[in-house]
């Protein structure tokens, strides 16, 4: 029997859902609002919510003081590059784990995930030294590699889950039809896993875009992405809230827009396989 839900109950559910949604969204909303205030209004006590003199001054100052586009470009390269590199490595890895598992496959998957439980700062020193040795400090390629490695376990896990949903017989059929391993992965497996691969890509772009620990510690000027751009506005001499907010808004805007337009794909991908 379907569970009976009264209209009152439905209204309450809706109200609670909106409340929770707003609660989650509030810091972002506050940041965006603050970015249009003057510095004085930004730190006004009590805080001003909507009735202030809207100004674009902060954006002008931020753009004048630092080259937004250069940071943006670095973010795009690093987030996109690390995701692409990760996918290229993870597709064959997940293929082998899903379709030709060994007795150790489960352990390997868990071990890969366990690396995510290590606090990143624990390996900062060795990685920093390696970067100096290899001349990778403050380079986009260095950061791309590090972020790819950081997110690789998640990419492999997600793809593995999606691949597991694909019947092995279809891949065997491809093999019988004369497909080489490369053709089997390229023409049969990948197109069938497109929804899963797409959401994996999206999620990893978001993760890489927002990654702040390694991007702040391993870059200075040349490879600095938007996270460094934001951080440059929180200085020890005092916080310029309005300008910090403007910088933050500019930094999160691209990924927010990307996420907004792909939310359907993202939700479908994240719940893929939950219901047969």
């Amino acid at each position, binding site marked *: 029997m379907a569970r009976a839900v009264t209209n009152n109950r439905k209204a309450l559910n809706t109200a609670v859902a909106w409340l929770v949604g707003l609660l989650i969204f509030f810091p972002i909303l506050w940041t965006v609002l603050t970015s249009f205030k003057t510095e004085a209004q930004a730190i006004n006590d009590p805080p001003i919510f909507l009735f202030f003199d809207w100004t674009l001054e902060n954006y002008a100052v931020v753009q004048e003081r630092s080259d937004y586009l250069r940071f943006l470009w670095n973010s795009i390269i690093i987030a996109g590059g690390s995701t692409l590199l990760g996918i290229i490595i993870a597709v064959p890895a997940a293929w082998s784990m899903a379709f030709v598992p060994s007795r150790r496959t489960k352990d390997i998957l868990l071990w890969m995930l366990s690396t995510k439980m290590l606090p990143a700062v624990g390996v900062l020193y060795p990685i920093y030294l390696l970067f100096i040795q290899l001349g990778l400090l403050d380079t986009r390629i260095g950061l791309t590699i590090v972020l790819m490695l950081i997110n690789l376990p998640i990419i492999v896990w997600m793809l593995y889950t999606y691949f597991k949903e694909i*019947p092995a*017989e*279809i891949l*065997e*059929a*491809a*093999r*019988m*039809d*004369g*497909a*080489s391993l490369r*053709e089997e992965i390229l*023409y*049969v497996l990948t*197109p*069938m896993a*497109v929804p899963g691969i797409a959401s994996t890509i999206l999620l990893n772009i978001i993760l890489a875009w927002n990654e702040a620990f390694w991007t702040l510690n391993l870059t200075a000027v040349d490879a600095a992405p938007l996270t460094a751009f934001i951080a440059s506005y929180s200085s020890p001499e005092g916080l310029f809230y309005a300008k910090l907010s403007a910088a933050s808004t500019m930094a999160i805007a691209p990924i927010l827009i990307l996420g907004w337009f792909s939310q359907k794909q993202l939700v479908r991908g994240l719940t893929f396989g939950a219901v047969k």
Partner: protein
Amino acid sequence: MGRIVLEKVKKAFGETLVIPPLDLEINDGEFVVFVGPSGCGKSTLLRLIAGLEDVTDGTILIDGSDATAVPPAKRGLAMVFQSYALYPHMSVRKNIAFPLRMAKLDQAEQNRRVEQAAEVLNLTDYLDRRPGQLSGGQRQRVAIGRAIVREPAAFLFDEPLSNLDAALRVGMRLEISELHERLSTTMIYVTHDQVEAMTMADKIVVLQSGVIEQVGSPLELYRAPRNRFVAGFIGSPRMNFLEGDEAAKFNAQAIGVRPEHIEASATQGNWAGKVGVSEHLGSDTFFHVHVKNWPEPITVRAGGEVDLHHGDDIYLTPDPERIHRFDAQGLRMG
């Protein structure tokens, strides 16, 4: 050409021996059916021939050359799977053309062959649909189409009809038989359904626990089963087995009589019993007869008109020419 020879082929998964060393010859153009109960290794054997599983030991020869280590893509065999295994993201046309595309045939030749196959299989109107938009029978035909376009040395069928309903199954059975008549290509067909085996095969291979119990034409197996297992597996309803005194009369450990080789009468016969369950099919009637002191009921086939019901007295007379005798090991005698 499609002559396949297995020499001492053995398969083990870890410690478990699935197929002990086994020899088998399949001649060019033959329709061979592997039949046996679930878990008898028939599908594994087919997958070994396909190359989807590696043999643990032994040799597989296809047209005289050693194919044991050749990957499935290069064996020149085509396979039809139980689940059809169509590519869901491709149209019917692309599904059928896939093996040709992999073989790098030019586009015109691909189209020609796809259209030819579609016509043979009545799929012309569906070429631009996706597999998801087709019925089970149509999907199975697409799978067959994908197999025939590449003109393989042999076709491998892995229980291709088990997912279809009964009426479709009979239709597809005929279609596959007709296909074999027309193409005269070697076909190896795996099924657990002895009716499919009997109706389609030139040669039946009966398997149990990875061991070949008997190889022969359907009628050879029906008339002269090599042992009790084959005798019980081939024929429907299954053969009646009797042990003890009745078997001793024939100087055997056990005797077997098929339901169709026993005469039923309401008045006289060798064995007296009472009718238990009776199944009236119209053309035939099957009586399950309880004979006093016998552990199991005897199944008897009678004409559709025999009018006996539950609890009635019945007399049975087996055809003495068609009694099968088995020794203590279950092997056929004389």
